[in-house]
């Protein structure tokens, strides 16, 4: 029987897992170890309303002191886990302390990928609350912000910077943004959204050389252009924090490899959230995604499996992004799809795109149509084969179409 649990990492996944473990009756010790000095918090606002100053810190916190006290959850903050010991459920902290438990949940998340050669006083990354506080101070009217990478984080930073009156240049190495998630056509729509809001988006172009003068960062691009900026934000993806598991016997491959139950190959060791490369039964492959909802869902599933239930995590991945006054949402996994059906007007940023593979709905991407995403999510779970003409036709009620394909 599992009595005690250590959770390595103190982010979204850890918070949800700790709550689920207690709510579901775990009687023994729960220890959450996190290297950041502050209590666990939500990250999505860090590029949006928190970064813009429209929202304060109050709404960010996840595990309050009061809750931890009442539920006897031990939070060890400012504590870095150096090593998970081989074949055991004990972890070693940076200061040498050893902690042991019946089960371990690895929820260490990810960190921003660094760009070699781009270092200096004016370089910013965005992952933590401290990062957001620092960057927020740079986003002033009239400032020139250069963002490297036009993914979701890059686009949201660009959006917030524009909102605060800064001028923004974005460099994207690929010839359209977000192609790996959305495909070319929808990637172009995202590019258009940025440009429509005054972002100088340059695709097929990245940093060749970086230097700083007394009053500016100077980036020379691969197209030979020199761009001066007050601050340079690097948003070129993330790297999973797997280092403590090296040599532990747990399989690592672009993340911590787990089965559909969030179990690693080592008994009693689980992983969930951004760091986990999870076997997804619906898509029949291992996938590692970096979404809030996935952190919640896997955190919950991992906790239940720690308690001895056999619950597979099967929900289609879902995420949103709020940028340039629009709400973007994506559900499922569109890789390898052979048909995209658009409902609504892509040009006016009011549409849903459905991604089909051999007629089976696998993914959907919507701008300002979250209602469609809810229905699509259900159809994707059911491996539904909706009639493309019905998907396209705005007079057909999607919920009815979904019911008809079940």
């Amino acid at each position, binding site marked *: 029987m599992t009595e005690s649990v250590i959770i390595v990492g103190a982010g979204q996944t850890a918070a949800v897992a700790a709550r689920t473990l207690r709510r579901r009756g775990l009687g023994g010790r729960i220890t959450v170890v996190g290297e950041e000095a502050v209590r666990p918090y939500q990250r999505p606002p860090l590029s949006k309303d928190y970064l813009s100053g429209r929202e304060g810190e109050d709404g960010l916190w996840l595990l309050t002191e009061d809750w931890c006290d009442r539920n006897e959850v031990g939070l060890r903050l400012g504590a870095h886990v150096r090593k998970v010991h081989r074949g055991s459920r004990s972890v070693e902290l940076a200061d040498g302390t050893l902690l042991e438990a019946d089960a371990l949940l690895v929820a260490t998340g990810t960190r921003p990928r660094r760009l070699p050669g781009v270092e200096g006083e004016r370089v910013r990354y965005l992952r933590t609350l401290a990062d957001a506080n620092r960057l927020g101070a740079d986003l002033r009217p009239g400032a020139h912000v250069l963002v490297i990478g036009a993914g979701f984080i890059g686009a949201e930073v660009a959006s917030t910077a524009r909102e605060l009156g800064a001028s923004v240049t974005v460099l994207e190495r690929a010839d359209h943004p977000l192609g790996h998630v959305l495909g070319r056509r929808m990637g172009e729509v995202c590019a258009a959204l940025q440009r429509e809001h005054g972002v100088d988006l340059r695709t097929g172009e990245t940093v060749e050389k970086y230097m700083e003068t007394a009053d500016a960062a100077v980036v020379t691009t691969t197209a030979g252009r020199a761009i001066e900026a007050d601050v340079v934000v690097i948003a070129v993806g993330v790297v999973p924090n797997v280092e403590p598991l090296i040599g532990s016997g747990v399989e690592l491959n672009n993340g911590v490899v787990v089965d559909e139950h969030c179990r690693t190959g080592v008994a009693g060791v689980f992983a969930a959230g951004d760091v986990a490369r999870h076997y997804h039964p619906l898509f029949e492959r291992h996938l590692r995604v970096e979404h809030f909802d996935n952190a919640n869902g896997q955190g919950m599933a991992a906790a239940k499996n720690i308690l001895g239930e056999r619950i597979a995590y099967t929900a289609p991945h*879902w995420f*949103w992004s709020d940028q340039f006054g629009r*709400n973007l949402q994506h559900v499922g996994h569109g890789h390898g799809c052979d048909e995209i059906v658009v409902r609504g007007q892509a040009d006016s940023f009011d549409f849903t795109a459905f991604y089909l593979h051999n007629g089976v709905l696998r993914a959907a991407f919507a701008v300002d149509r*979250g*209602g469609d*995403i809810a229905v699509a999510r*259900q159809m994707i779970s059911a491996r539904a084969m909706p009639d493309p003409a019905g998907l396209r036709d705005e007079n057909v009620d*999607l*919920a009815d179409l979904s019911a008809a394909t079940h």
Partner: protein
Amino acid sequence: MGSWVEVASLEELARRKRKLVVVGTQQIGLFLIGGTVYAVSDVCVHKQRSLTKGTVLNGQIICPGHQWAFDPQTGRAADREECQPTYDVRIEQGAVFVNPSPRALTSEER
């Protein structure tokens, strides 16, 4: 406050299944779900998106903003503490009336 206001016809709701109405300063979403009319504040407690722009699935109202799922009777969000204000509804001769004072939850609903 507290006096019933006629806001829609049942026939119209049967066709469109949901409708946004404005009563005084309040934006109220009407939803026809499984033959019953529910009235819920249209402004999502999370980030103020409009619930009538969302959808209804498995008897729950899904917010288009971030997919929170609300019970139309209690306004409670699934797996969360937050709660959307709800209003009493009365149907008379094919007309839908709403009481614009938000309901207090009964002890079972809480």
